[in-house]
């Protein structure tokens, strides 16, 4: 990793919705912080002698992206991903921070695991925010030690990967987390309705002979969690929303003023269940890819603000877990390196503008997790992504930085890419020839 040096990002387009900025300008980074922003007409600030200057030719300068839902697999499943490789994949995708889910082995349900993750992340290419477990071992029985995990550096709690089936435990988690200002993230799934399911339930599951996961498996639990948030008044964040009725429920809950936020993943607004045809395990995930109607509703939710955050649910699995029979294969796909082009597709189709894109990928996750970032204010840490919205590329397996290659987008032509990433003023990803 290069030492923090003075860097001048020249002639970019600064898109910084947190500060209501969208202008052509240059940005100076010094000592890991944003030192100055100036347009061509403005007076150039004093530049340090040793300076790395990069001419961006109107590429976008945006706050570093923050993925609030990733699985880094360390400790315990280092053959799939490590904190180091996951953070490098993040930097490659334009991310400067990731929040890692606790379903490691051992589960991050104690301060010692939280500390271990942060120690391993010390020199990583992105900031790593551990998310602790709601219940010990994520077994859904007793509360984990939220206070100690928070002190150790956890930013939220969840039993992600599985739902909290006991409603009383979920209620207590919401109440108890509020003492520490910890966000509770819900993996909303009725695991009885989804039991043994391998894909979305419908004609295609019938036709492929696969046990289906009905959309109601998500919706009944979304409703329960919304009711608990409303009743307790405690903030709740709903992870990986995938169905039309979930979007409707969340929209209504927000109208009523419930203290809730919600995220979806790029695959839910990009793909449908059709992607699993031919038993493609790289399109197998939970919640499963849904129908075109659900996909359109998710896009509508993104357009109208029902969805606050786009998070990738980056879920690396090796061929050992993926290149097997479909019903036996693990759930999940990697997402860090494809989030930018997939979200830019929404922008190009006119569903969202540039500012909204930055809000969902950076501003809102920072606000929800109460972490730094999401802003290009003078004096803020230089967590910056430079995006070339036009660049086309074909995603090739050998170019993927993540240790795992389980992506349904391999071989497809994508448009838009992070070309430079700075984390705390350090270059963590750079495609410019310097």
């Amino acid at each position, binding site marked *: 990793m290069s030492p923090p040096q003075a860097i001048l990002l020249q002639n970019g387009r600064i898109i910084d919705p947190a500060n209501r900025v969208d202008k052509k300008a240059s940005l100076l980074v010094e000592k890991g912080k944003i030192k100055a922003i100036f347009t061509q007409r403005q007076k150039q600030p004093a530049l340090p002698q040793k300076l790395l200057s990069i001419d961006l030719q109107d590429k976008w300068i945006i706050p570093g992206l923050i993925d609030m839902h990733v699985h880094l697999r360390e400790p315990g499943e280092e053959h799939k991903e490590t904190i180091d490789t996951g953070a490098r994949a993040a930097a490659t995708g334009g991310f400067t921070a990731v929040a890692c889910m606790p379903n490691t082995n051992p589960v991050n349900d104690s301060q010692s695991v939280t500390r271990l993750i942060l120690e391993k992340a010390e020199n990583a290419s992105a900031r790593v925010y551990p998310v602790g477990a709601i219940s010990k071992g994520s077994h859904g029985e007793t509360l984990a030690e939220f206070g100690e995990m928070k002190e150790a550096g956890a930013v939220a709690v969840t039993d992600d990967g599985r739902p909290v089936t006991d409603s009383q435990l979920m209620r207590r988690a919401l109440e108890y987390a509020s003492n520490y200002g910890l966000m509770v993230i819900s993996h909303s799934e009725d695991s009885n309705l989804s*039991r043994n399911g391998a894909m979305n339930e419908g004609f295609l599951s*019938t036709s492929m*002979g*696969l046990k289906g996961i009905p959309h109601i498996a998500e919706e009944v639990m979304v409703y329960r969690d919304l009711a608990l948030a409303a009743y307790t008044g405690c903030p709740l964040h709903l992870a990986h929303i995938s169905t039309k009725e979930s979007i409707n429920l969340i929209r209504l809950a927000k109208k009523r003023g419930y203290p809730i936020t919600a995220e979806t993943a790029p695959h839910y607004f990009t793909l449908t269940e059709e992607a699993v045809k031919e038993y493609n395990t790289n399109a197998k995930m939970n919640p499963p890819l849904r129908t075109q109607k659900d996909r359109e509703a998710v896009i509508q939710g993104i357009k109208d603000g029902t969805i606050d955050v786009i998070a990738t649910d980056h879920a690396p699995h090796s061929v050992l877990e993926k290149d*097997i029979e479909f019903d036996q294969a693990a759930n999940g796909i990697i997402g860090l390196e494809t989030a930018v082009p997939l979200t830019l597709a929404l922008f190009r189709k006119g569903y969202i503008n540039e500012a909204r894109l930055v809000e969902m990928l950076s501003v809102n996750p920072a606000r929800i997790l109460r972490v730094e970032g999401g802003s290009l204010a003078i004096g803020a840490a230089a967590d910056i992504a430079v995006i070339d919205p036009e660049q086309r590329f074909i995603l090739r397996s050998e170019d993927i930085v993540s240790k795992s290659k389980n992506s349904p987008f391999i071989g497809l032509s994508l448009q838009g890419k992070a070309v430079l990433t700075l984390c705390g003023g350090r270059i963590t990803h750079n495609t410019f020839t310097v």
Partner: protein
Amino acid sequence: MSSEYLFAHKHILGLDHLSVLDIEHILNTAESFKEISARAIKKVPILRGKTVVTLFFEPSTRTRLSFDIAAKRMSADTFSISASTSSTTKGETLADTAKNIEAMMPDILILRHPSSGAPHYLAKHLKTSVVNAGDGTHEHPSQGLLDLMTVKEHKGKIKGLKVAIIGDISHSRVAHSDIIGFSKMGAKVFVSGPATLIPRNVEMLGATVCGTILDAVKEADVVMPLRIQKERQNDPLIPSFREYATFFGINLQVLRAAKPDALVMHPGPVNRGVELAPDVADGSQSVILEQVTNGVAIRMALMYLVLGGK
């Protein structure tokens, strides 16, 4: 049949990917092979020197024996491998198992596997012809074809017939292949049973769902009850066999709603007294054992055709 027709399938994965012409060709080929089994010397040399391996990850008596007999009647050498568990628990992956078998140069791999899509997965990994002998709750193409053959023998046609399939449609790969096969060949398929056992959107496969079994069986040319299980993998489906037999079993009274010459079929093994009353199973309308006989001919035809037979 058009003279340009060519059977171009290297694998038989399901009826889903076979055309009407393909199915007609398979049925005609099987028809011509059927008399071989009736000869005193039940052997022809058409697959001499070919190797057929049956790889079964689920218990089976008749399907496995049927493939074995079919291959031997065509002079192929046959080998059987039973595996009691699926890849994730066994330690060796399905692909590795299959590639090891392939390294011994077989010509056809007959696969039965509890995972839907397992034969499709192997077909992608192997150069050997793969014949699906039942995958999960997906398809059982040779059974679907032998059912078509049996009905065609008795009725002289498939088109326009009414076929009633009763029972566990959700978990039956036979029902699945039959719905696709009979619909493709122009029959009308009606399904009925406990609502817990009717899969979502099954009508899109070509079946009409009936609220009562009498509606399904009424004026039917073919009545096919399916084997029933009380629960599968913690999923409660029916409360008891007794109640099932009372409300969904095929007995003489129910059969009276069908056409007088309706065929009674069953993919086996039969739960006597549950989905099928013994007097119906053994009655004059039952063609259950003819299905088994035709199974050999169908499997001969499939193995012959995937190896390039005309």
